[in-house]
């Protein structure tokens, strides 16, 4: 094993000091004199024609500086990561409750608010489509001209699934459904924009996940030179996929352009829930066949996604649902089909776990059911079917990067919680009057990177300045995941310098290069490789500078540990600071660029499928079910991720711990309730997140496997731990009280009802 100074250790975050002192300036923390306050007029109906939109009274209100409608958009009136059909400001139709109709900028919040109330809108209501089932009916009104199917995907079948099922000894079939889930980042969408007329530059500060894409989307709507739009998206107070799409950016830029004054727009919590994207609600049907020997033979999956009114990134989400749906197991025959359907419900979008959380909830229950049919231990059963490196996946592509599912399962089997689970449950059951306890397990493979055929690259810049300060420039956004620290660790390790010397400039389209989006658990792998690439260019450059300084040929020198030294006399060295000073005095700054591109899979099913890298993970949950109230308490969760090499141990643990609680919320509490297009959950009093008193004790067992094409062997870990925690909890509930759930969230009311039904059948 290589011994590292920074890699694989617990390294304190480089941004923590500013965060614990309140000094970090988030985009919504920017205020200045004469800054205008903006508000957005949202639709008051979920589906309607706009007959009349009259902003004249609002424009006349003293203190109002601008009221904008679709007529004021110079360029394309739409945005969207994949297809830009989400209107910046609606023209003649609204399709969900979050649709924007007009923008107001005024001298203060109160005036802006009042101006909104003076805007007159006349609607002609249209029928409201809540579900894909309704949208697919023959006589359903069309939400978009092209029809109500937003996207459909059939992965080319592998073998003959019907034959595989027919030849199976045991076949099970079930349909699972999941709710819309809210990201609930603590910092809601917001920011500030300024228009510098002299330079022709519009600057937008806004929490996001990809400043360079925002830049293009803003430019497209303003019909502006993208190079004259500066977006600063970092840092932000949580994102989880919800800030990858446009929220306030275009609205802010428009208002800054028209008012020529600094403008601030910060969504309320209600606006964030109603207008912003959610985790898609989905229905997934599995048919799975198995032999009496416990080997899986065939899987047939059908997914129907409720995507809401517009596209954003719904296609790729659905695709990843399909890719994730078989799990990291071998099936000789398979078929995966899905459709994503427009409705007037909440907006479906990108969310950590990207299409996987919805399907793995069902799959991993199905696997437990199959194991139970044969009386097999759930981990043994998964081990029997798990894939290995070099195997052909359920989808038909070769797994050519590290595959650690077996290792995670084996490590799970060795944990005290799993090994001693019968005794643990017995002891707990004996001590509790009203509760029954259970232990459950579940696994997942989670794709890393955007997938084949999509531009999946990174550029970074490394500079060494006089005095030895090292600057790392990356377009990546710090959304809380700790990537800046990981980049600094990788650069410090590769250069052999102190991490304290490194300053990271991030997420600014004018000050950093395009490193791609911070989604898809991709940023460690791709930016790490770009950093290593930069260091590869940097070292010869440093030797060249030293050669110039010493006046000797470069091949007499070598680079190691932050210095260039004489091969013949290792004590004669030049430090980075000395090298930078020399370079500076000769007018050649030390600046190199590093790039990296994701290696892709051997197959291409279109639309980004399939992927080449996966995080593998197993999670175990211990729960207690109150048999009187139906309340489920999650007592303990152990996460066992295989993400290649862990760059920062605290970082990996932190990702797992946060993800587990997010998964717990999804499983037990969280639900964006929309009835007839109207939001019933509008804040944290009705959208229930776990508090510190509700969460389990946690343990993370890092299962390392070296991935040769990753930086220091790393892949990524951001999303995977949000996913199997749900079926692990559900399987644990089954272990405790013998009832299963096909629908999320699992409320106490539902638990009690199921337990009643079970008692009823047992009596009969």
């Amino acid at each position, binding site marked *: 094993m290589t011994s590292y100074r920074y890699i694989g250790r617990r390294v304190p975050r480089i941004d923590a000091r500013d965060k614990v002192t309140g000094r970090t300036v988030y985009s919504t923390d920017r205020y200045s004199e004469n800054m205008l306050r903006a508000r957005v007029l949202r639709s008051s109906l979920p589906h309607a024609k706009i007959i009349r939109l009259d902003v004249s009274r609002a424009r006349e209100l003293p203190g109002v500086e601008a009221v904008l409608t679709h007529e004021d958009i110079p360029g394309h009136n739409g945005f969207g990561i994949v297809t830009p059909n989400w209107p910046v400001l609606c023209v003649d139709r609204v399709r969900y409750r979050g649709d924007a109709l007009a923008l107001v900028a005024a001298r203060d919040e109160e005036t802006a608010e009042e101006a909104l109330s003076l805007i007159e809108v006349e609607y002609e209501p249209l029928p409201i489509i809540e579900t894909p089932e309704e949208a697919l009916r023959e006589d359903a009104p069309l939400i978009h001209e092209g029809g109500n199917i937003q996207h459909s995907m059939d992965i080319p079948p592998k073998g003959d699934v019907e034959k595989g099922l027919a030849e199976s000894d045991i076949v099970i079939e079930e349909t699972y459904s999941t709710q819309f889930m809210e990201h609930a980042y603590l910092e809601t969408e917001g920011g500030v924009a300024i228009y510098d007329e002299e330079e022709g530059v519009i600057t937008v500060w806004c929490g996001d996940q990809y400043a360079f894409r925002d830049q293009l989307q803003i430019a497209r709507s303003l019909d502006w030179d993208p190079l004259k739009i500066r977006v600063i998206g970092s840092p932000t107070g949580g994102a989880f996929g919800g800030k990858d799409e446009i929220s306030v950016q275009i609205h802010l830029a428009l208002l800054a352009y028209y008012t020529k004054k600094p403008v601030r727009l910060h969504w309320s919590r209600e606006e964030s829930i109603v207008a912003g994207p959610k985790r898609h609600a989905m229905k997934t049907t599995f048919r799975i066949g198995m032999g009496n020997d416990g080997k899986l033979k065939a899987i047939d999956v059908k997914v129907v996604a409720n995507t809401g009114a517009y596209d954003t990134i719904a296609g790729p989400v659905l695709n990843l649902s399909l890719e994730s749906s078989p799990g990291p197991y071998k099936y000789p025959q398979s078929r995966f089909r899905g459709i994503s359907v427009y409705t007037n419900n909440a907006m479906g979008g990108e969310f950590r776990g990207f299409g996987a959380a919805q399907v793995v909830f069902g799959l991993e229950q199905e696997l437990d059911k199959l194991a139970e049919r044969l009386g097999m231990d759930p981990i043994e059963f998964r081990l029997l079917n798990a894939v290995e490196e070099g195997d052909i996946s359920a989808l038909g592509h070769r797994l050519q990067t590290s595959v650690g599912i077996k290792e995670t399962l084996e490590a799970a089997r060795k944990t005290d919680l799993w090994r001693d689970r019968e005794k643990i449950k017995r002891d707990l059951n004996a001590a509790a009057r009203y509760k029954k306890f259970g232990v459950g397990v579940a696994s997942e493979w989670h794709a890393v990177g955007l997938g084949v055929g999509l531009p999946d690259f990174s550029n970074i810049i490394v500079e060494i300045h006089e005095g030895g300060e090292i600057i790392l420039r990356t377009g990546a956004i710090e959304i809380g995941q700790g990537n800046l620290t990981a980049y600094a660790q990788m650069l410090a390790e590769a250069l052999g310098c102190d991490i304290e010397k490194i300053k990271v400039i991030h997420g600014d389209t004018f000050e950093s290069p395009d490193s791609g989006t911070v989604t898809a658990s991709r940023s460690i792998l791709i930016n790490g490789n770009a950093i290593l690439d930069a260091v590869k260019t940097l070292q010869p450059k440093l030797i060249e500078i030293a050669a110039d300084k010493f006046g000797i040929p470069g091949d007499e020198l070598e680079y190691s540990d932050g210095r260039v030294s004489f091969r013949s006399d290792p004590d004669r060295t030049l430090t980075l600071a000395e090298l930078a000073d020399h370079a500076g005095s000769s007018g050649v700054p030390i600046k190199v660029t590093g790039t990296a591109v994701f290696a892709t899979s051997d197959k291409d099913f279109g639309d980004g499928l399939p992927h080449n890298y996966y995080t593998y993970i197993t999670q175990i949950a211990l729960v207690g079910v109150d048999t009187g109230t139906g309340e489920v308490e999650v007592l303990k969760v152990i996460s066992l991720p295989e993400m290649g090499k862990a760059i920062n141990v605290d970082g990996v643990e932190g990702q797992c711990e946060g993800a587990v609680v997010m998964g717990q919320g999804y499983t037990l*509490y969280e639900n964006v*309730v929309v009835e007839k297009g109207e939001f019933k959950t509008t804040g944290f009093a009705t959208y229930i997140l776990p*508090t510190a*008193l509700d969460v389990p004790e946690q343990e993370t067992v890092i299962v390392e496997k070296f991935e040769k094409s990753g930086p220091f062997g790393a892949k990524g870990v951001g999303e995977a731990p949000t996913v199997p925690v749900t079926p692990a909890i559900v399987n644990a509930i089954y272990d405790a009280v013998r009832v299963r759930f096909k629908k999320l969230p699992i409320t*106490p009311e539902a638990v*009690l009802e199921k337990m009643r039904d079970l008692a009823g059948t047992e009596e009969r």
Partner: protein
Amino acid sequence: MKFNYRRAGSLKEALEILSEGDESLKILAGGTDLLVMIQDKLISPGVLLDINGLEELKGIEESNGRIRLGALVSHGQIAADKLLREKALPLVESCGEVGSPQIRNRGTIGGNLVMASPSGDSIPALYVLGAEVSLKSRDGERVIPIEDFFTGVKKCVIRPDELLISITFPALGPDDRGFFKKLGQRKALAISKVSTAAVLTLRAGVVVSIRIALGAVGTTVLRAPRTEAFLTGKSLAPEVITEAARLCAEESRAITDIRSTGAYRDEMAGLLLARGLEKLA
């Protein structure tokens, strides 16, 4: 938000101001309900009258076996009070479960009563403690038994010119027992889906008297008279408790909303009673 702010310097001044009959005026205590209602645009008052300086509305005292709470006493003060823990346990338990530490530090018992929400957590406890509420206006004071104070969902008998001054109730004696239990959607920051409070006098294992109140299961907090009658004179044997829970669920009249279903709430009202009683048995 747009309104004016006035601070009442004395009780007399406050009552004078209230007597002026300004309909746009609202009384501000802890603000944990009022400011949320204003933010949600449910109300838009022109003036807030801050009563937090009024000494007459503060303090927790016992005299002659009766306990007096000023209307401005916070949930946090009640939850941490030794005297109340000994002599008004259900109230201490209920206030200890309100919202979060931050909410408990600001939210007052007076505000909880005037809001008159069926899920107001202090209310079932005050029912079973047999509390009385003192209301004062420029023209005089009236004392109202707690059960006559509420008239419907978020409705109570207080007049716009009145201030809620204090709450009084008899201290629990050595033979008295009591509890408050609630179910919310999570363990903190949880509005009650259902709550049950009870005070009973137990002698030699027999229930001499009992009062039961149920929160969040009706338009106001409800008593459970049939269950009370059934339990009186009985010992707390398991089959008695089971029957009491069944009766209590029958007496509950919950509805379905975003937090829970009517049927679940009704059943849980009984279950919480049973769990409280089992601990005392």
